[in-house]
């Protein structure tokens, strides 16, 4: 689960030119032909840097994303719901594993990525800094956050970096189960007792702003964005993905007689675009910078996992272990 809204502008194409104009031309020609870039291929340093940042943030989002949903495993209503939620949370952690490996092929060690997660240097998706207050939050996360993540990940799976695309193909396959089970919980509550409906409506109201934040602020169509899109690092602008999401999922929510806390939200039939009130982007940046309602808890739990698990990993470690960069 991940929204790709955090790629800061900063790709200096001139730097890539300076490295080697000839290799850059070959690299770009390969991408234009629709071929994938593989780990040991030549690539511009900025391409490598942006991909590491993006895949690493995605991996962190998966591993931290397991926490809010994990909250409800112990109290899931019924055995099948509990099995499904455990399977989903396990998948998310598995996705983190796949993604850390994909990022590792670009030369950043897994331990360094985990250090940067714990010390707050690298980010993860904002949505996971919010609490899952009730079982209905699990429904909203499973249905809508995963749906938003799928929009993002399906786009990225057509990107140019081979290992990331391969990881995403598998991730998307598993995410489609997450979406289905989330939708099922969502529909059960929406068509249940008045109290269940109210619980769901409240959860929806709480989550709407984080969901609108999910794809990130409107991108300025800068030279940087354009370069990242030509190199197929970024596959669609934040706005395009947000529109895709609204177009598919808002009608499904309204269909069930639920409302969304934005009086301006509607589709402009003449342009086909959704109109909405801009969410508060100050909140977005505040949460990214570590001041979300659960930010401290999430990182504290992650730290404790590393700290209290260290002796187990050390006890199992072998003196003759040899490191090699993962192949794919």
């Amino acid at each position, binding site marked *: 689960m991940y929204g790709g809204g955090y790629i800061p502008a900063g790709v200096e194409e001139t730097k890539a030119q300076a490295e080697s104009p000839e290799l850059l031309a070959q690299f770009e020609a390969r991408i234009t032909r629709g071929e994938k870039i593989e780990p040991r291929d030549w690539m511009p340093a900025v391409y490598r840097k942006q991909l590491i940042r993006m895949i690493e943030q995605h991996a962190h989002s998966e591993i931290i994303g397991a926490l809010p949903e994990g909250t409800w495993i112990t109290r899931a209503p019924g055995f099948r719901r509990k099995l499904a939620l455990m399977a989903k949370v396990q998948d998310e952690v598995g996705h983190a594993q796949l993604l850390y490996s994909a990022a590792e092929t670009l030369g950043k060690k897994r331990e360094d990525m985990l250090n940067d997660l714990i010390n707050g240097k690298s980010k993860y998706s904002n949505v996971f800094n919010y609490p899952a207050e009730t079982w209905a939050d699990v429904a909203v996360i499973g249905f809508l956050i995963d749906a938003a993540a799928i929009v993002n990940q399906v786009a990225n799976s057509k990107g140019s970096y081979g290992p990331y695309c391969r990881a995403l193909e598998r991730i998307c396959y598993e995410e489609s189960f997450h979406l289905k089970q989330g939708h099922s919980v969502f529909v059960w509550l929406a068509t249940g007792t008045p109290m269940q409906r109210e619980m769901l409506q409240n959860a929806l109201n709480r989550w709407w702003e984080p969901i609108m934040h999910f794809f990130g602020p409107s991108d300025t169509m800068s030279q940087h964005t354009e370069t990242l899109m030509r190199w197929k690092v970024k596959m669609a602008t934040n706005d395009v993905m947000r529109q895709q999401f609204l177009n598919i999922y808002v009608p499904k929510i309204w269909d069930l007689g639920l409302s969304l806390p934005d009086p301006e939200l509607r589709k402009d039939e003449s342009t086909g675009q959704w109109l909405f009130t801009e969410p508060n982007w100050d909140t977005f940046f505040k949460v990214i910078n570590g001041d979300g309602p659960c930010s401290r808890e999430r990182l504290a739990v992650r730290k404790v996992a590393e700290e209290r698990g260290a002796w187990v*990993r050390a006890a199992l470690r072998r003196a003759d*272990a040899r*490191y090699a960069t993962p192949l794919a």
Partner: protein
Amino acid sequence: MLPLWPKYLFMPILSLDPRVNRLQVEQVPEHQPPVLVPGDHWPSYQVFHQRRRGEKHSSVGIVHAPSLEMAMAMAKEQFGRRGETSNLWVVCTADVLEMDYADEEVFRTTPFKSYRDPAGYKVNEKIDAYKAKQTP
């Protein structure tokens, strides 16, 4: 000596998750875990998966593990938890020799070596012509 942090930071985090509460995590800002060094999370292993007997094993991804045996346990969990699985292989990444991608040029003409290909041998025209000549 402890710095003068507000008292609430020394209280365990109150989470909605009962499991987190059982961890008794304190949120002291200066409390830094030991920094991980490369190798702490073990080497990587390449995993090959066979769906059904009779099919081939295919590369499916990697796991990190302290040994081959643990790599196999991780591989079962990571690559065998859905769909069918008949068999798995794990190989230490450091033991794999990878061809340089730059060498793929060497194989560029291979698809055009028709003399290595059954489709490169067409004789029906000759046979038909021969037969046509034979019939009175």
